[in-house]
């Protein structure tokens, strides 16, 4: 009797001891997966001329996270936002803070391509997952691509390349090109030329005023004197407002059709452009007037959350970024430790976005634009806005020079 009892006692005791020893570990693991939040780093400008974009992107992200009650796979979602002021040194400093100090699980942003190029190596070498929510530098989908970097916004090439053929066919075979004198501006005009020239178009002249130019008078006079019937351009933010207004003031609207990359008439510029923007035709992957049910709900939710503000392309980029994060995390059950698995999950994400059917191109980790919409600025129920009048389907960045996994 005693031996059985002792063995039983020992067995029971050891089980109890093991349980007691393991108990705290099990409890802590459970507590960790419940208490430890998923950290999402956001590095965009919240001050400076492009603050509107940073705010819009963040707002788009919040629409998704709010819908999910700020939780995914049993973990809380914690957004850590940092202001990069659109300055590369600050952006890189903030990126390092988010990666090294805050130890974010996923990084998102930036708006400025210069900051993106500056942070690329740090992100790649530290194996941090980055989902680009704006910056369009083509290089990130080409020779500088990385297994850890995904882009949910656009590459500079995408909104422009389809426009070339369309403008040649529908507007005029002769254009004057004008864009600010920096990499993005030059890249966009090159992308336009690809299909424009092939469709029989002729570039009469090109001009590249300095970024941040406030007085376009000499260029507008040149445009008038060249005798063209159409202009294709890229401007954004303050430049877009000043160019469009001055274009109108010089009376050019009466005889010349103004076309361009979609950023020319996005809602960060449209209210200030006012009537001067009427009739401008641009190419973009988004318009708040898109008829698909996801977008209708998105517009409704966005306006509800933000006092009637109408979402724009930047908000859509934020929405898609957040949606990708949520779906990928769900697919791996919230496990942010196994990064390779998380990367695979992100690459496989597919869903209905306000812009259409969203998926990444496995070749470049860049989003495949379901459509590039050709839009015209008109008066609508939502005020002055970009109304889709035509579209080009399935636009993917050529990804020349990208070899994944890198």
């Amino acid at each position: 009797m005693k031996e059985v009892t002792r063995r039983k006692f020992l067995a029971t005791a050891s089980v109890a001891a093991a349980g007691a020893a393991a108990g705290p570990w099990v409890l802590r693991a459970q507590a960790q997966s419940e208490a430890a939040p998923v950290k999402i780093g956001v590095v965009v400008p919240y001050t400076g001329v492009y603050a509107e974009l940073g705010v819009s992107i963040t707002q788009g992200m919040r629409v998704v996270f709010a819908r999910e009650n700020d939780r995914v796979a049993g973990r809380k979602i914690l957004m850590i936002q940092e202001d990069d002021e659109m300055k590369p040194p600050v952006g890189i400093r903030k990126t390092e803070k988010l990666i090294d100090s805050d130890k974010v699980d996923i990084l998102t942003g930036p708006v400025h391509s210069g900051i993106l190029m500056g942070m690329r190596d740090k992100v790649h070498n530290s194996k941090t997952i980055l989902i680009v929510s704006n910056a369009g530098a083509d290089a990130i989908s080409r020779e500088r691509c990385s297994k850890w970097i995904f882009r949910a916004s656009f590459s500079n090439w995408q909104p422009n390349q389809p426009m070339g053929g369309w403008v040649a066919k529908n507007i005029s075979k002769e254009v004057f090109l004008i864009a600010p004198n920096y990499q993005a501006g030059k890249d966009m005009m090159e992308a336009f030329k690809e299909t424009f020239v092939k469709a029989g178009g002729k570039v009469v002249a090109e001009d590249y005023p300095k970024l941040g130019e406030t007085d376009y008078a000499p260029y507008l006079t040149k445009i008038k004197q060249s005798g063209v019937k159409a202009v294709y351009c890229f401007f954004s933010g303050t430049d877009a407002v000043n160019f469009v207004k001055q274009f109108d003031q010089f009376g050019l609207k009466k005889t010349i059709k103004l076309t361009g990359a979609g950023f020319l008439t996005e809602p960060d510029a449209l209210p200030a452009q006012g009537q001067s923007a009427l009739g401008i035709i641009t190419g973009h992957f988004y318009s708040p007037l898109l008829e698909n049910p996801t977008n209708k709900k998105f517009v409704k939710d966005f306006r509800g959350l933000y006092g009637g503000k109408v979402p724009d392309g930047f908000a859509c980029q934020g929405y898609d970024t957040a949606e990708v994060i949520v779906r990928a995390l769900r697919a791996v059950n919230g496990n942010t430790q196994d990064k390779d698995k998380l990367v695979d999950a992100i690459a496989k994400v597919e869903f209905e976005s306000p812009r259409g059917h969203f998926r990444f191109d496995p070749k470049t980790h860049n989003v495949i634009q379901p459509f590039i919409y050709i839009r015209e600025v008109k008066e609508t129920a939502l005020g002055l806005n970009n109304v889709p009048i035509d579209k080009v389907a399935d636009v993917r960045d050529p990804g020349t020079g990208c070899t994944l996994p890198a």
Partner: protein
Amino acid sequence: MRSLRAAGFAVLVAVVAAFPLVAGNYPVKLLQEILIWGIFAMSLDLLMGYAGMVSFGHSAFFGIGGYVGALALLKSPGLISALLLPAVAAAAAALLIGFFSIRVSGVYFIMLTLAFSQMFYAVAFQAAWLGAEDGIVGVPRPAALGFSLTSPGSFHLYLLVLVVCAVLLLWRIVRSPFGHVLRGIHDNEGRMQAVGYPVNRYKLLAFVIGGTVAGVAGSLYAQLVGSISPDAFLWTTSGEVLLMVIIGGTGTLGGSMLGAAAFILLQSMVSSYTERWMLILGLTFVLLVLFAPGGILGALRGRVGIRS
């Protein structure tokens, strides 16, 4: 007194050297930025506090050092690219700019130096071969004497060694007969001229020394961050380093390092907490000028630093 100060300096250097062992990557990066901006500010203090030349274009040399260093390192990552070429380029630029600027003084000097640095900004901003608006990225860290300096620990020590050398150099210059003449010129240029000193030549030499150290700082900055952009030339960069000198206390050398620390820490920490950081920073400067004219070091020492 001197040995006490030397001991204190040695302790400080040791603490800075050991910092990466106890702190995470981000605080170490901040410290390294402070060190680099610190010698940048000190080189300006040589001009301002000792020679009495208020330059609003010191960013020109920082930018030149940064760009020359970046371009050279991309071609061949050695110490010559990292240090020698930027120093020579910055010295040459300082000689040129100094030659024209020193002919005038006071407000005109401020304006002229500002305009020169903006000229460099305009060139860097528009030139495609300099990366235009985006600048140059992917700058590698140099390899020295067979050792690669890419590991954080070795880079930290390399940086520290160079910063200490710069500090000691400036410190020696300020205490040398040359430094005394500079101070004499600052106090009363006419008298120095009457006594027979070639005042302009002294000023030019001070300008070139200051510019050279600033150029090395610029190159180190490009190595730290891995990139350089036209913003390095902006007049607001000149303004910020000017602020660092004034905050720390003009004419104190060490104050400039403190000023750099104060500015960078303030900027980083405040901007992480509030969107209104520009307002707070601006108000801080305004209040500082009105109520603490000697800067930090001046307030600490209870007296006003040497100023024009």
